[in-house]
């Protein structure tokens, strides 16, 4: 293809087909709308972003194919990959350090990549599953009237029986030791359309809280089953891939009261949304609605796109206002400092928390907020909750060190020498 001068390529691996399309579609729409808006306003410092979608169907091998196809696309190559799948992220982590393209797995992927000394090319800010788990426990403690009251309580973890679903387990276990709650592990096999056994066990063991790391159809079924065994919905908390519109809508009224973690806002009440609605949809709300406008995952797509474009903008500060290479964008990611003021300028005040990435910390351990489904929309029921860094960070560093050893990687010093 011929590339217009002054254009740079942002690849977008999406899954608008397959079992997880209900999640993939809103996300992809959020990304593409935001980029369209940026372009409509003249691009980033005059550089237009060419968003190239590649359909993965959430399949790892297709994701790799997309990566290989897009990594060299455009005059300067791909800016940054957002694999949108833990499986694909794992594949790309290694490839990218050879190809010198950064990967940003926002709130998924390999948690250990938070250690930027080992994972130079991989970023997973603003937060990870481990951080999230600690924040959710904090929330529960809060609800119980203080962390001390967790002692003797029962917390069940219903999780997708895959590396993704199991991510939170070590953190939850450590915290169980620390706070003295009883942890009940309930794995659910993919795809999770049948969870009778799981919910029978919940009915029997009567946990005080249920935390869920689910994915796809598993969430919808879990919510229905929870209602069917009369589990109190407001004690049932999903992680941020388990608390979206697609998860609660099929359950209808049963889902009322269900909670979920999130690291950004839900709804369309931000200035940016108004901007998008006006610029891209000519104010036609119905048309925008068809594109999942304002849904949780749509908003997550926006956050993701904001991070990418802001990182590019940061990099331009150093390398000049022109299309940048992946290597340059990596620098932008590592030096990203998205302040509250900048967010406000973007029309996203308090939409997500400020982020400051460093060489050591590619995660930033951003705070998490709990939202609740009121039957028609998500509403916040907590303030921003800071994860327990003292618990999580050592885990991260240990895992990263083990990885480095296995792969024979010498960690960076982060003193500016590399």
């Amino acid at each position, binding site marked *: 293809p011929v590339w217009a001068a002054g254009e740079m390529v942002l690849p977008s691996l999406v899954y608008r087909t397959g079992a997880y399309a209900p999640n993939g579609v809103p996300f992809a729409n959020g990304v593409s709308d935001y980029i369209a808006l940026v372009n409509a306003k003249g691009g980033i410092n005059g550089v237009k972003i060419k968003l190239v979608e590649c359909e993965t169907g959430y399949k790892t*091998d297709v994701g790799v194919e997309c990566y290989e196809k897009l990594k060299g696309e455009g005059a300067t190559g791909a800016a940054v990959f957002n694999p949108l799948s833990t499986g694909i992220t794992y594949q790309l982590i290694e490839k990218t350090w*050879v190809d010198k393209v950064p990967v940003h797995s926002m709130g998924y992927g390999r948690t*250990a990549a938070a250690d930027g000394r080992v994972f130079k090319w991989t970023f997973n800010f603003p937060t990870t599953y481990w951080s999230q788990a600690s924040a959710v426990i904090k929330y529960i403690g809060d609800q119980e009237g203080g962390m001390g009251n967790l002692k003797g309580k029962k917390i069940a973890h219903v999780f997708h*029986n895959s*590396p993704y679903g199991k*991510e939170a387990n070590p953190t939850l276990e450590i915290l169980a030791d620390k706070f003295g709650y009883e942890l009940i592990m309930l794995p659910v096999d*993919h795809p999770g359309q049948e969870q009778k056994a799981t919910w029978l066990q919940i009915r029997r063991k009567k946990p005080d809280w249920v935390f869920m790391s689910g994915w796809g159809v598993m969430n919808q079924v879990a919510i229905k089953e929870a209602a069917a065994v009369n589990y109190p919905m407001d004690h049932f908390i999903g992680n941020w891939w388990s608390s979206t519109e697609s998860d609660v809508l099929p359950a209808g009224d049963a889902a009322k009261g269900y909670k979920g973690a999130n690291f950004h806002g839900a709804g369309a009440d931000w200035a940016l949304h108004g901007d998008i609605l006006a610029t891209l949809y000519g104010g036609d709300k119905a048309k925008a609605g068809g594109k999942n406008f304002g849904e949780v995952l749509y908003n997550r797509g926006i956050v993701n796109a904001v991070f990418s474009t802001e990182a590019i903008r940061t990099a331009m500060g150093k390398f000049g206002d022109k299309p940048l290479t992946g290597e340059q964008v990596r620098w932008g990611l590592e030096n990203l400092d998205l302040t509250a003021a900048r967010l406000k300028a973007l029309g996203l005040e308090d939409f997500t928390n400020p982020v400051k990435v460093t060489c050591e910390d590619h995660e930033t351990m951003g705070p998490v907020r709990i939202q609740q489904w009121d039957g028609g929309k998500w509403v916040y029921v907590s303030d921003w909750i800071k994860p327990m860094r003292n618990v999580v960070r050592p885990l991260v560093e240990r895992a990263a060190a083990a990885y480095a050893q296995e792969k*024979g990687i010498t960690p960076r010093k982060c003193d500016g020498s590399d």
Partner: protein
Amino acid sequence: MLYREAGQFKSSYGADQAVFPIAQDRWFIAAAAVFAFVVVPLIADDYWLQAILIPLLVYALAALGLNVLTGYAGQLSLGTGGFMAVGAYMSYKITTAFPELNIIVVFLFSGLFSAAVGIVFGLPSLRIKGFYLAVATLAAQFFLIWLFNKVGWFYNYNPSGTIDAPPRAMLGVLITGAEAQPEVKYLTALSLLSVFALLTKNLVRSSVGRAWMAIRDMDIAAEIIGIRPLRTKLLAFAISSFICGVAGAELFALHFGSVETLAFDINLSFLILFMVIIGGLGSILGSILGAAFMVLMPIALTNLFVGGLGMQAVTAKHTEFMVFGGLIIFFLIVEPHGLARLWQIAKEKLRLWPFPY
């Protein structure tokens, strides 16, 4: 009238039993080998190697393995993904436990583990047949995946639950790991495929292969002429899972570099089975053609729809599904016995050319 066997007389049974008895075929194969081993690495770019050719070769190897079991021995199996997982996880275990061991040897050892597992799950085949067996082999698929997911030992207890291929070199050339050259990975996969294809071809044209086919075509009669069904079937399971195990190890170490059990889920089993059927049951060439079809066709369609016709990625994908499904049915109708048979008919026509028959 270039493709003729006239004038090529075979003076010994040995010559008659050669893999390619016709000279033109031999020339063609030699040319293809030169092309694959020499020309391709020179001209193919990263995308072709990493995204298309390496997976193609790996899948072709797996398809070859399954073809031994299903195409030759007639035992329908949906456990391929599980057996490949055994290969992958065992190669990880072996190479992390013995970092000095040559990676090719590691592959072969992982194959042995896979073969052992294959034998265990092949036991029910004595009594269970056809689609019943196919569904029963799903027990292997689900159990193995569950096991590798569950037992931390298999992934060295690392918290992410995935396994990563460490860099390993042979004769000073890196073969696995991110830094290994795609060309090297490609040649490794190609060599392994060629060797296994040749060995398998030899097997299926000797008495073991005939015993398999006998069991496949009519197991009772086979038993009556003296073939021991269980032993023959188990040998097929063992060899098939051996090859699949090696393919699994390759998929992990050469292609992906990092996998979780999801990579070996039931869809992989189905995919390999489709390759075998589309390519041609009971045909070595078919395994390769089938793999090529299943790997290349979707990519070609996507590139056609997105690149060529400028469709949206989603619409393209949906259309691709429909066209791909339609193509499968179309090819089956044109030739139920697969692409390999189609190729053979083409050759036969060529032989008769310019006469229609």
